[in-house]
């Protein structure tokens, strides 16, 4: 085959949705294989490893994110129906849910408050700018809500979107360590903690830990979004007057 033909094939591939979609699936399966091989080492979190692999690939080939997303959007789109599907594990735990309704609500409000207050306090103490402090506040909510809250309090929504996804990755990576360290063994409580702190990405990890953990994490992700929109503006007023 002549070099020109290869060039033509590459020009086709680098602009077609096929490449972005395939790269996403290949990277994820490779990352998942590696994670299983290493006995699920937290730092080799498959989401994190896949992102680094694809990020490296895009940098190396010079393909723009916009072009990559043309293909990857088919995967991205499934987030909506998958979120709806979280109703099914939750329905299976309906008895446990009714029995622990009070613990769920108190845990959620405490968690969402700590998430926003500690992020703002730490960033402020370490000398972050006013806008960064505000952009960090809603980081534990799922990204569309986090961005809307950020806009409302004077943060930078695009910066908040980055924070929210990083929070999800960090949370899903450290959750099992932290929960074991503070001796939280109750599966429902473990799930609630993961969904409250790390929204959907935490929930993806929680599902792997078991049915109860996954169900409560999905519930927490939904309710924490609601609590965050109420709590964060109040905290901002208390912080900055």
């Amino acid at each position: 085959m002549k070099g020109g033909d290869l060039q033509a094939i590459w020009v086709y591939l680098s602009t077609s949705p096929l490449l972005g979609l395939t790269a996403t699936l290949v990277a994820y399966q490779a990352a998942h294989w590696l994670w299983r091989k290493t006995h699920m080492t937290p730092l080799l979190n498959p989401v994190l490893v896949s992102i680094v692999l694809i990020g490296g690939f895009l940098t190396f080939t010079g393909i723009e994110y916009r072009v990559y997303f043309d293909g990857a959007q088919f995967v991205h789109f499934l987030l909506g129906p998958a979120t709806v599907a979280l109703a099914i594990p939750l329905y299976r735990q309906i008895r446990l849910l009714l029995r622990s309704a009070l613990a769920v609500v108190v845990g959620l409000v405490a968690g969402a408050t700590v998430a926003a207050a500690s992020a703002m306090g730490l960033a402020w103490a370490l000398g972050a700018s006013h806008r960064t402090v505000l952009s960090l506040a809603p980081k534990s909510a799922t990204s569309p809500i986090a961005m809307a809250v950020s806009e409302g309090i004077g943060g930078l929504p695009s910066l908040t979107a980055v924070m929210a996804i990083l929070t999800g990755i960090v949370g899903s990576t450290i959750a099992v360590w932290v929960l074991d360290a503070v001796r939280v063994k109750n599966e429902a409580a473990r799930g609630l903690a993961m969904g409250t702190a790390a929204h959907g990405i935490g929930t993806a990890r929680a599902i792997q830990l078991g049915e109860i953990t996954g169900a409560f994490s999905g519930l927490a992700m939904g309710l924490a979004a609601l609590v965050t929109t109420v709590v964060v503006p109040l905290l901002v007023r208390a912080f900055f007057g």
Partner: protein
Amino acid sequence: MLSSITVLLLCQLAGEVLARLSGLPVPGPVVGMLLLFAGLVIRRGVPDSLDRTATALLSHLSLLFIPAGVGVMVHLKLIAGEWLPITVALVVSTALTIAVTGMVMQALARGKRRS
């Protein structure tokens, strides 16, 4: 499978419409989740095909976050100037949130069992 995907999409669509009409600060898919949950409660059970589709979708939920995650890499320069306070705040605050939420719920759930 086709019918269960249709059910999921219909719930999401209804959720998006309701979320926008009500102006509630909840994402459309989350409202869709509550609608489906209500439907299952009324129906008193999960149809087999819906169960299979949902299990397949949720078993690889992590995969679905990758496209947005790659977008973060592109925007990492946004945090470059203040990476230290941001990293510390993010990691410590997330660990604190996990610990507090878990401990509060576990304490309350346990207290209830004793009484």
